[in-house]
């Protein structure tokens, strides 16, 4: 594996008038990795991607591709290609001409263009469509043509700007897997931006969660899910029960808290610097909560609750409980082992969750 990363951003900033769209972002992507930037709309991820592609110039900072600074290189000379949100296939050309566009600009001769176009179309599973019109393809096929059009140029980095956003749900699920396969087949570095956490979690080697122009956390999908560093990441990646509490006792790595509603809670601090008496926010994932019919010994956290409603959604079903002690509402993932199939509104159940899966963040 080579030492220099394919893409490296050093302290990139971008300001529009008095608005900071991207604020001091640094990261690097090693060769052949699938890197996602996940964030809500307006968080600056599109601006960041457009700076990498060269359509916008950073206000400050440096951008390196294969160790070479490209800040002053115009987009048509950069070794990066981009798959646009709405794909931007040229409707005035057939598929072959679309895919061969970049090669023609490089002055490759006609027979070679034709050969390479055929080869790349074959690799994305669309052999023999070169003479057809773009409009004759389905959404997923267009997607693959857009990727082929970039990959035929063998870019160092492929940028993808939420390309699955326009597809319907079923196709989106399918394309997630296909994109990942294409990425490993071409062994090219992908930088993918999205606001859809499941796209990022499924496909990426590394994910950066972005909010208000800064990277909140960079890590693997598992790290983001199990060990979110900030309250924003904990709330944005996956579901979570959130409640406010106050620190009552510290020690042994565990915190003892009292929730606003009066329930004692034990959890782990997600960062340093918490002190006794601090106001904190507590996050517990619905799937971390265990249900049982019989009372459980609650070394960590737990109690008794009444079922408020059952939100049935197949494997993603949830139960809303009303905590008998504090009156707070808790959302719990419904286990699909059949045990709770007959759970109904008004039933009383016992719940419990581990202190290790209770993450505590400083408030504010």
């Amino acid at each position, binding site marked *: 594996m080579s030492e220099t990363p394919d893409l490296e951003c050093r302290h990139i900033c971008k300001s529009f008038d008095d608005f900071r769209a991207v604020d001091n972002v640094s990261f690097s992507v090693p060769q052949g990795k699938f890197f996602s930037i996940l964030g809500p709309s307006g968080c600056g991820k599109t601006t960041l991607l457009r700076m990498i592609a060269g359509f916008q110039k950073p206000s400050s900072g440096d951008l390196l591709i294969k160790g070479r600074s490209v800040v002053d290189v115009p*987009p048509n*000379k950069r070794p990066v290609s981009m798959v646009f949100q709405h794909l931007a296939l040229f409707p005035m050309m057939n598929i072959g001409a679309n895919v061969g566009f970049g090669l023609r600009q490089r002055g490759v001769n006609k027979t070679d263009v034709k050969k390479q176009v055929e080869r790349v179309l074959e690799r994305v599973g669309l052999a023999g469509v070169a003479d057809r019109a773009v409009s004759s393809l389905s959404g997923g096929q267009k997607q693959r043509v857009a990727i082929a059009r970039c990959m035929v140029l063998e870019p160092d980095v492929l940028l993808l700007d939420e390309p699955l956003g326009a597809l319907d749900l079923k196709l989106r699920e399918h394309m997630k897997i296909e994109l990942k396969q294409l990425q490993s087949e071409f062994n090219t570095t992908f930088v993918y931006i999205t606001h859809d956490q499941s796209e990022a979690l499924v496909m990426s080697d590394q994910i950066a969660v972005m909010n208000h122009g800064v990277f909140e956390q960079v890590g693997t999908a598992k790290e983001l899910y199990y060990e979110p560093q900030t309250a924003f990441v904990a709330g944005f990646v996956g579901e979570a029960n959130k409640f406010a509490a106050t620190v009552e006792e510290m020690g042994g790595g565990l915190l003892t808290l009292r929730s606003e509603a009066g329930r004692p809670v034990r959890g782990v601090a997600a960062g340093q610097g918490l002190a006794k008496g601090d106001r904190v926010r507590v996050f517990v994932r619905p799937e971390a909560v265990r249900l049982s019919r019989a009372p459980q010994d609650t070394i960590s956290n737990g109690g008794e609750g009444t079922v408020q409603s059952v939100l049935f959604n197949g494997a993603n079903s949830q139960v809303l409980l009303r905590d008998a002690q504090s009156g707070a509402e808790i959302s719990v993932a419904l286990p699909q082992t059949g045990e709770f199939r007959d759970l109904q509104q008004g039933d009383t159940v016992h719940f419990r969750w581990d202190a290790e899966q209770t993450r505590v963040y400083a408030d504010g």
Partner: protein
Amino acid sequence: MPMADRSKLTFYLLLAPLLLWLVTLIILPHVGMFIVSLREKVGVREYETSFANYAVFFNEPLYWNTFARTAYMSIASTVLTLLIGFPIAYYIAKLTRGRSKTTLFLMCLIPFWVSELVRTFGWMILLRETGIFSNLLQYVGLADAPVEMLYNDAAIMVGLVYTSMLFMVVPLVTTLDSLDDSLIEAGYDLGASGIAILREIVIPHAMPGIVSGCIVVFMLSLGNYLTPILLGGKDSLWFTGLIYSQFITRFNWELGSAFGFLLLGLSSLIVFVGLKLTRQSLGKTMAQT
């Protein structure tokens, strides 16, 4: 009344004004003109049906030459209008946003609030021997005597381009507006230069607008009477001028009608050839803009 009959009635009622306009103002006069153009005067109030009027045109080089000159001058003014109008339209459609876009568009429109006659006189004030340009040149020292810039082909061309600019810019702005910016960005991203993008993406997309703008400008130039006569003077030799003099000065309605039909044939032919060359169809062009 049954539903089907009622909707049929509505359809015909809505169609009626259009049909009325077409039949009374376009088809009937043309049929009348065509009949007049086929009459040959053989004596006082004695006429025979023949193509003699058309033969006059083909046997007289002046008519011929004027006809050809009108055609190529119109084509030249169309091309010139396109070359000047395209960058303007591109700037308005792609490089400006919101308020400044509306302002620029309006600035193209404002000259048309003044009548064509007044606008043409405006050009005469600028270009004549004692006009502003002439005085300016003398003042700067580039000329030592008054310069006459009127009454030549260049003056006609300036007038024609100026008169028809709006009709080129409007359809171009409309089509260029509908070009997705990401297509241009995708072009750059795939390594194309500005010229390659213009040639392979922008112009193919704008083709319907280019063609419809060209058709309108060409028709306006070919059928223009005021501009060539006023700016070109008596030597302007514009075909509409010939038609005018046949009808009004010489009372030769028969020959005038024949000329009118020849002009109609010429413009149709050139538009047809233009559409074939650019591989566009009239229906598609007009529907898109």
